[in-house]
């Protein structure tokens, strides 16, 4: 074969030099890139929420000097709460947005490509089903938490700069704001929370949603929700218990393992201890194992699936 293609003049001469294999990370990188091209809401939605919050913060900054004067009368704990409030609000809003985007993304990820028949194009390229499914899973589990982190921190920094400018302009001291806002610690905490809870702890949910989106022919949302409801109902009727519901609820709220990472108010050195406890908790690893099983099933399904 090589000898033959060498005989073909010029245009194919360069071909044998070009490596026939490329690094396995490249198809993955481009698959993730492709998801971001297709689903621009992944970054537009949190950016839009951040923009709205910044806008309203800018308007409310007029009242900032008077608010600060009032705050000086409070004790340090109340001061901290008052000053930190808008910053926590930013973090929570962007987190909630990221979750909503992640859920809708996951439900459509393996469904959309079958619906618009483009799966036939993707499958005509040397990208394995494993790479494709992993790249899709990485969006809600890794990319969205990282994006949410970056956008939150950037927004908080802008808010802090605006507050400083406004206070300086009105001739007040910025010391109170800066001492009560350990931005670095807050960011570290947020980072652990986003990757730990939103990424790893919620991974089985996203794995389930991806599996359903790869399986359902239509109404992926119903197929994702109804079985969970059905299991809860059957358990209630047969055993008169609600362990399954409690299990889901504890998973959603972070559970006892995730709890130390959940409270964004706890910005003390305890974080490191909590992080260690979180990473060594069986709940986390059982969840990850379930997520892996769901994703493996999704990979297998995609092998058999054609357009719908």
């Amino acid at each position, binding site marked *: 074969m090589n000898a033959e293609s060498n005989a073909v003049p010029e245009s194919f001469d360069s071909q044998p030099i070009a490596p026939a294999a490329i690094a396995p990370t490249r198809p993955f990188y481009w698959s993730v890139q492709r998801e971001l091209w297709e689903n621009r809401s992944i970054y537009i939605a949190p950016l839009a929420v951040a923009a709205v919050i910044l806008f309203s913060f800018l308007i409310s900054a007029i009242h900032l000097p008077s608010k600060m004067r009032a705050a000086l009368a409070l004790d340090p704990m109340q001061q901290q709460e008052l000053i930190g409030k808008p910053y926590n609000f930013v973090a929570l809003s962007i987190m909630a947005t990221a979750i909503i985007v992640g859920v809708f993304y996951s439900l459509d990820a393996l469904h959309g490509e079958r619906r618009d028949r483009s799966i036939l194009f993707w499958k*005509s390229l040397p990208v394995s089903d494993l790479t494709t499914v992993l790249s899709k899973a990485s969006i809600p589990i890794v990319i969205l938490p990282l994006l949410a982190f970056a956008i939150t921190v950037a927004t908080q920094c802008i808010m802090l700069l605006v507050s400083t400018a406004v206070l300086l302009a009105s001739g007040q001291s910025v010391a109170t704001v800066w001492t009560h806002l350990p931005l670095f610690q807050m960011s570290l905490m947020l980072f652990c929370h986003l990757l730990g809870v939103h990424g790893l702890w919620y991974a089985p949910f996203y794995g389930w949603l991806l599996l359903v989106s790869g399986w359902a022919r239509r109404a992926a949302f119903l197929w994702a929700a109804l079985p969970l409801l059905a299991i809860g109902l059957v358990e209630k009727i047969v055993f008169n218990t609600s362990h399954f519901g409690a299990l889901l609820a504890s998973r959603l709220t972070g559970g006892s393992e995730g709890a130390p990472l959940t409270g964004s108010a706890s910005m003390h050195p305890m974080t490191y201890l909590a992080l260690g406890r979180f990473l060594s908790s069986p709940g986390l690893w059982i969840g990850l194992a379930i997520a892996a099983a769901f994703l493996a099933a999704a990979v297998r399904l995609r092998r058999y699936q054609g357009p719908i």
Partner: protein
Amino acid sequence: MTVIEARGLRKAFGATVALDGVDLRVEEGRILGLIGPNGAGKTTALNAILGLTPYQGELRVLGRNPWTERDQLMRDVCFIADVAVLPRWIKVSQALDYVAGVHPRFDRAKAESFLAKTTIRSASKVRELSKGMVAQLHLALVMAIDARVLVLDEPTLGLDILYRKQFYDSLLNDYFDRSRTIVVTTHQVEEIQNVLTDLMFINRGRIVLNCSMEEVESRYVEVTVHPDQVAAARALKPIHERQALGRSILLFDLMTLDKVDRQQLAAFGDVRTPSIADLFVAVMGNQTSAAPGAPR
């Protein structure tokens, strides 16, 4: 060198048998036309070759098992399923970036020079392109891949005649060489008549005709019979007869006729090689009347 080899290829969807023991062998450098009525099993056969569907029996493409090694196989095999599979949201430039990113044998400059000859702009999204332009884009992507096998499943479906003609012209002039192999299915048989080197008719999951175009020429003869010779010609058992402009046109398979050659048939009237379309009608017509698997 054998590029595609199948033995006893079988595939059933529930009670429907899509492929019923297909044996097939495609050599390097051939352009094979897989022709059959709707539901004959063409697409199923191609899907099996491309690793898109599991199957029973033995199948090797470039020495690989397509079902278990699809992603490796796709480095050497390209396919255009039909004109509507490029995602509608993708931009032309993104499609180029993506294929360049994942495909080791993609030559971006080549694809861009193809696109430069068209009216497709790199900032356009696929949804903004006409059907013909989408086909051009897909062909540009595929032709820039230095693959060894190209599979085309109804690649020109729904395109106007200009695009269809251009499609096959580019394929032959700018892409095909003797080290590549092309398998194509289409209903527009007349348009690929001169493109093919090999012909395969498939019906109800079975291969009913499998020969090279040279064999078609030496084996099948179509005679426009003089009215007074019709009875004598019919006595030689043509495989098909049709009427056109008041004349009987009889199609003979020389392989089934003993001691009859072109000269003798020429005595009945004008002799020529049948078109693929006429041959298809003749062979398939016999298929529907005779039991499957017993064409002659």
